[in-house]
């Protein structure tokens, strides 16, 4: 049982981690605490529906469509909503993402209707049997792809010039502009990447269940994940996601599914008390 829970927890956690990573990328670049991250994930699922069902594209093109669509969406959000609000206080920035999620939900319901849709992508759906552990191939695929995406992102973030400029901008805004970095482009790119990561997570979640705007609520589990990991930390987001996935499965399995929220949020409170900057975040030195 335990190994089973751990495995499914890690698989789910990988998806959460992916969405949380997207969240962190956006946060690092623009300091926006994105409550719409769950809805961006849903957009990914609906992009898949558009490409696969409405346009009838083959699978590889569907993937390309999702990525391009999510990228454009992220850039549009940055220039239309985030930049005009630039530099405002915490709460308006949170609120604009909430407004964004209301708008996206309405648009999706207008286009696709409120009823959940079924989407079948050619992803493996069988089962591996290892001893007495039965592993869903979809789970494995989700985990593997999530890890690949995370790895890809980290390589991009660590090795490429765009990633370097992104890290530099996150490190210090003023120093970045004084080094000639076109910060707007970098921020827009961060939103595009954050949206893409969420969209990929959305594609897997809608394969686990239905394509529906209600997936948003699952995507919102990325929030506690990033806080547990530390808002600014890329590995923290991934580990936070894994931790949330594990807690969810273990709490549901051994105690009660109702206990899940408690087992996520009580430790979160404790972590905030003991390490207010998250498990992997960096302490910021207070200056007067």
């Amino acid at each position, binding site marked *: 049982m335990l190994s089973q829970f751990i495995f499914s927890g890690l698989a789910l956690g990988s998806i959460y981690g992916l969405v949380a990573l997207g969240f962190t990328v956006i946060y690092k670049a623009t300091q926006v*605490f994105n*409550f719409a991250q769950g809805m961006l994930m849903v957009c990914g699922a609906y992009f898949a529906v558009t490409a696969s069902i409405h346009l009838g594209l083959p699978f590889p093109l569907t993937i390309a469509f999702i990525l391009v669509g999510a990228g454009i969406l992220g850039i549009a959000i940055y220039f239309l*909503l985030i930049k*005009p*609000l630039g530099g*405002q206080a*915490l*709460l*308006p920035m*949170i*609120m*604009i993402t*909430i*407004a*964004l999620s*209301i*708008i996206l*939900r*309405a*648009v999706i*319901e*207008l286009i696709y209707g*409120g009823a959940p849709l079924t989407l079948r992508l050619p992803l493996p759906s069988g089962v591996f049997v290892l001893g007495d552990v039965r592993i869903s191939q979809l789970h494995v695929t989700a985990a593997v792809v999530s890890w690949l995406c995370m790895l890809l992102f980290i390589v991009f973030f660590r090795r490429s010039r765009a990633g370097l400029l992104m890290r530099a901008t996150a490190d210090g805004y003023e120093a970045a502009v004084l080094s000639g970095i076109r910060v707007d482009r970098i921020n827009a790119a961060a939103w595009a990447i954050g949206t893409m990561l969420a969209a990929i997570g959305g594609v897997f979640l809608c394969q686990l269940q239905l394509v529906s705007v209600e997936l948003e609520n699952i995507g*919102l589990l990325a*929030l*506690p994940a990033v*806080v547990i990991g530390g*808002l600014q930390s890329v590995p923290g987001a991934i580990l936070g996601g894994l931790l949330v996935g594990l807690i969810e499965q273990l709490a549901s399995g051994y105690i009660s599914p*109702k206990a899940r*929220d*408690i087992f*996520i*949020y*009580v430790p*979160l*409170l404790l972590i*905030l*008390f003991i390490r*207010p*900057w*998250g498990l992997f975040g960096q302490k910021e030195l207070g200056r*007067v």
Partner: protein
Amino acid sequence: MSNGVTAYLVRLRHNALPTTLRVIGVAVLLAILLYLPYVLQFRSIFGVRLSNMQLLNIGLSQVNLTLISIIGAVSLNYLTGCAGLVSVGHAAFFALGSMVAAATGMHLKLPFLATLVAAMLAGAMAGVVAGLPSLRVRGLYFVLSTLAIHFIVVFVFAEYQYAFHDVTGVAVGDAKIGSFEIDSGIKWYFFLLPITVLSCLLMRNTLFHREGRAVLAMRDNELAAAAAGIDVRILKLKVFAFSSAFASLAGALQAYYLSNVAAEMYSLNFAIQFIAIIIVGGMGTIGGGVIGAIVWLLLPSILMGAATEVKSGPGDFASFLLAHRPQIVNLIFGSIVALILIFAPHGIAGFLRPLWQRMIGGLPWRGRT
């Protein structure tokens, strides 16, 4: 007390309209507020019937619920706008208020008004607990700690509900004062109106006195406030208790108004709606909370009413609009919030104030006071 009222009026007179006009203004406002429930109940003004759209598709029930929400919104604005403590866990205190009102009514057999007081006390105590993280963490991390509080309270509520009450919710008793039962929309209105006005005034009054002003100072600059001898830690907890007490009062009133509440009602969206209210209305002012609550609760209804009226127009488009009314209303609504955030960052109240001042400023009596 009368001394205080005089001082209060003196302060109001500063920078405002002459007394006669003020008295007339207040009288007119009072008259409107007193006559409003009859207009909404009987759908007519002075015996002349009005159509639903002429009354903006608004009913008495909505007004009553708006009054309750005003208490909730103003209390959040006190916490977030006045004290600078951003909370997304305000629904937790609503839930707590309704739970305590139901529990003290059922288990202790307390009368209606006593349960309201109990709810406020419980809210204040829970507020202190919820405020504890503010001593340690700030900014986003604090926001998240309030989110955690929200989930924990709702969990406790659900457990309590399933253990002691019906699965469909917690039934609260009748709203009875002595043998007088508040059982109609109009009675509720006249019960809620003074409570709401009083709650707003109580919160507002603090801002003109020693410690309430210190709350504003703490929001603007915590270090400078400390340098003036203000113990910001204790003050934060006090503000939390004060604001949560009113939020719990609102929760208890809502529970009585609906007569049955379920833990599921207090979702994250419920909490977020209060944040939206104070942002739309305007942060840090009592008026902002009031205007925000009115707009947030009544605007969708007005939009919905207007959407129903749009029956003409190009056939396909009109039928598309009609079939997707809720979505279109939500779309317009979300866009309005985004536009307010971008173009009127101080909310509707902040947007109206200069207009109002310019209007008064342009009047001939301006120079006199």
